[in-house]
Each structure stands twice: as C-alpha cells, then as structure tokens.
C-alpha cells in the first residue's frame, strides 16, 4: 500500500488497498466489550446466533467497516473522512478470511484541498459481496504546479 503525499498520485481506478483479513472470536469479544453490548449476543455466543438463524457467532460488521476507515487513513495519513455509506449484505462467521479492497472512483481537486471518492468492498474469498460502500475523503493537499511545486 503506497502512501499518498500528493493528490497527483491519485487517479480514478487506483486501488487504495486490497488485503485479506480474518476476525477471530477473541477480537469480536474485545469489540463487543468496547461497545458495552449486552451479553450474550450473536457476535460471541453460538446459541444466541443460532436462535437468530446464523450458523455460528458472526463478526461485527461495524468492526469490519471501522478497519476499512483505518486502512484509508493509512493510505492517506492526513486525510479526513467526510462521508461513509455502507450496505451490509451478508454476515461473516468468525475465522473466515475475507478480502477488503477500495478503489478510487473520483478525484475532485479544489483550491487548497481535494476530495477523493472511493468504493470499498468486503468480499468472501470466492468473491461474494459481504459489505459494500462508498467513502469521501477530504485531503488538505495542494495540487502541484507545472514546476512540481505546491
């Protein structure tokens, strides 16, 4: 994942990141505890998950989206998220690897700043969409002039 230091490094179609990830039961427990969620629940308890129609405890979808936000922040360290839209399509059991990726769909340079639109996708390793969404990042990065100066 290349770090972005100039808006000129970003073009439509660029892949911000693409990597595999797996959420374990231990990680889900820590997340649930952080949220202060009632226990037991479908994220950490097999019986509750089964009662809700799941094959087993499921990974918290918001946790997965939070990681996407973190990855975007690492891609452009001084960017700020202005809008995030997410659709939750399918649940993900624990210890099931998935792929998370993001692609630039628009670059909107403005004086002294820029906006970058991305589509992100969390999919099973067979390509089934689990979570999809869009992000708009605000970048306080100046465009460079013909001499390469900000």
């Amino acid at each position, binding site marked *: 994942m290349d770090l972005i230091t100039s808006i000129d490094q970003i073009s439509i179609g660029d892949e911000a990141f693409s990597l595999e*990830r797996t959420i374990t039961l*231990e*990680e889900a427990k*820590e*997340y649930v505890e*952080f*949220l*202060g969620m009632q226990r037991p629940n*479908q994220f950490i308890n097999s019986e509750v998950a089964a*009662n*809700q*129609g799941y094959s087993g405890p499921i990974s918290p*979808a*918001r*946790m997965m*989206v*939070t*990681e996407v*936000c*973190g*990855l975007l*922040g*690492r891609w452009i360290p001084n960017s*700020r*998220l*202005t*809008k*995030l*839209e*997410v*659709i*939750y399509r399918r649940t993900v059991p624990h210890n099931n690897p998935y792929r998370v990726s993001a692609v630039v769909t628009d670059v909107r340079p403005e004086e002294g700043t820029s906006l970058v639109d991305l589509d992100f996708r969390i999919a099973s390793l067979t390509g089934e969409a689990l979570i999809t*969404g869009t992000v708009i990042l605000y970048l306080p990065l100046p465009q460079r002039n013909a001499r390469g100066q900000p």
Partner: protein
Amino acid sequence: MLRNLSPIALACQGPPHIMVGGSDLTGGSLREGLELNKSLVGKTFPGGSHRIEPDRVLKFRRFLDCVGPTNTYEKPILAEGDQVHPMFLNHLSVRQGLPEVFVGFPHRHRTPGGETLESLAPIHIGDTINAISRLVDMYTKKGRSGTMLFAVWETEFTNQHGKLVGRVRLPLVHTQ
C-alpha cells in the same frame, strides 16, 4: 405478544404498531396489506451526553488500526484536543434507549441494513458530544425469507458548543 417496553416506548404506546385488519399476529405470518402505525415517525429521542475520553479513543484506535488483540498494540500517546476519527461517533452508546417500534412483530432479530455517516466538523478528545435520534421512516419490504420491516433512524451529534459535528442514518431491519 408484547415485548418488554422501555419507558420511552411505553410513553409512545398507542394502538398496536402492527395491524393487519385487526388480526392477532402472534405466531402467525404476515400477509399483504400490512399496516404500520407511524405515530413515532418524526419523534426525537435523546441519546445522552458523551465526553470523548482518551482511554476510550485509545481502545477505539485499536479497531481502527486492526492490529489484533490488546497485547500486540503499541499504544499511542493521546492528549486533550487531539482530533478523533469521525467513525468514533458510531461507537457512542446512543441507541440503547431507542424504543422498539415494531411491537408485536415476531421477528427473529433486528440488524442494521447499512448506515451513512457524515462528518460535519472535527471532533476532539475532551469534547462532549450530545446525541439526538429521530425515527425518520418505517416501511416494509418483501425478502426471500419473508417480510422485512425497516425502521430508519437518524442521529445528530452536536458538541459542547452546540455545533453539529456529525450525522448517522441507520436503517434497522426486522426479519422473521
């Protein structure tokens, strides 16, 4: 079949929220002509005041940085005034007091269908965030496994200066 209602839900209780020609839905399947009582639409519900504490942000940063269990995390130094990622707003406990709007509907679970987060101004450690949630819509949809009921909630977050710093729109899906 009524669920235990929060005081807020009891205060808003009027006619049954799910009506199908007056028929009792307990244990039964929903049919066409489902009628929703939309008296709660437009009403607001307080989500409390939440101070952004450094230790909460530290814990949140772990999930943002997807670094795994606590013992592998190199803790950053956080200070009052440090800017916090807007996704932190989505981790405030503002929705636990929201009423059950589909009382009597025998749903197996209630889950977010998605969400939209708008960051309207930066938030910082030390800020006090006030949240107000409003039910903006209720509707039904046919799915593969039966009828789904949607309740769309919108939460607005303001800081201690009354400035609107964020907004989250959350459709909750109730499925049989």
